[in-house]
């Protein structure tokens, strides 16, 4: 399912919409950056509560389809600006990581 369709279906709030036609092929949940770097797969939706600027480079290099910030987390504005420049999709949601993953599972499994 495409990032834009998932965002609409689950009312994710867009923070950086850079390439929303990207296909989501899996999910990875984690806040420790080198775990995400090593274990997330290309095309995953990355669910996290980590919101500092370093998530943009990690998302880019791990090649995830999008970042979904859980628990209503909102990053600094410069994070969203950089993400847009680097082609990274970021959304936020009031749902917990578990609720988001369960919702995504409906579309992916």
């Amino acid at each position, binding site marked *: 399912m495409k990032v834009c369709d998932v965002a609409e279906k689950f009312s994710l709030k867009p923070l950086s919409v850079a390439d929303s036609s990207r296909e989501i092929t899996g999910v990875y949940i984690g806040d*420790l*950056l*080198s775990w995400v*770097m*090593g274990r997330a797969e*290309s095309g995953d939706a990355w669910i996290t509560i980590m919101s500092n600027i370093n*998530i943009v*480079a990690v998302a*880019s*290099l791990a090649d995830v389809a999008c970042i979904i910030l859980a628990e209503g987390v909102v990053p600094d504005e410069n994070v969203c600006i950089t993400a847009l420049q680097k082609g990274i999709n970021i959304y936020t949601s009031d749902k917990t990581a578990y609720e988001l993953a369960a919702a995504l599972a409906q579309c992916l499994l």
Partner: protein
Amino acid sequence: MSEAVRFHFTVDGDDFTSAGQASVQVKKNLRTLGIAPEIIRKVSIAMYEGEINMVIHAGGGEADVLIFEDRIEIHLCDNGPGIANIDLAMQEGFSTAPDNIRSLGFGAGMGLPNMKRYSDSITIDSALGKGTKILMTVNLS
């Protein structure tokens, strides 16, 4: 054999907001060169972890990426404090990162293990007070 394509970067040691920039640039360059996506991902991840380590643990350093016909080499060089026990540092979960760095999501002790996992070979030359030199190779065939 033809001359290698080379990219050189100076990695800033005290700018966390731009940490990872060299790796992001390398990813872009490799894409332009038409390198396969799986290879780009391996190089990107291995280099990012090394780049971040130079920022966090060594106050910055130099990075060189050389592209040969059969392999990509990532050379990292810093004049930081060096690694006291390389075997220990290579273990998953070992980290000396301070709390302020951990609060940014670093310090899981997974960087060096990722570098080993995503490169086809890695050599680490480091000693206390002497800095750290790392060579990672990703095969192209």
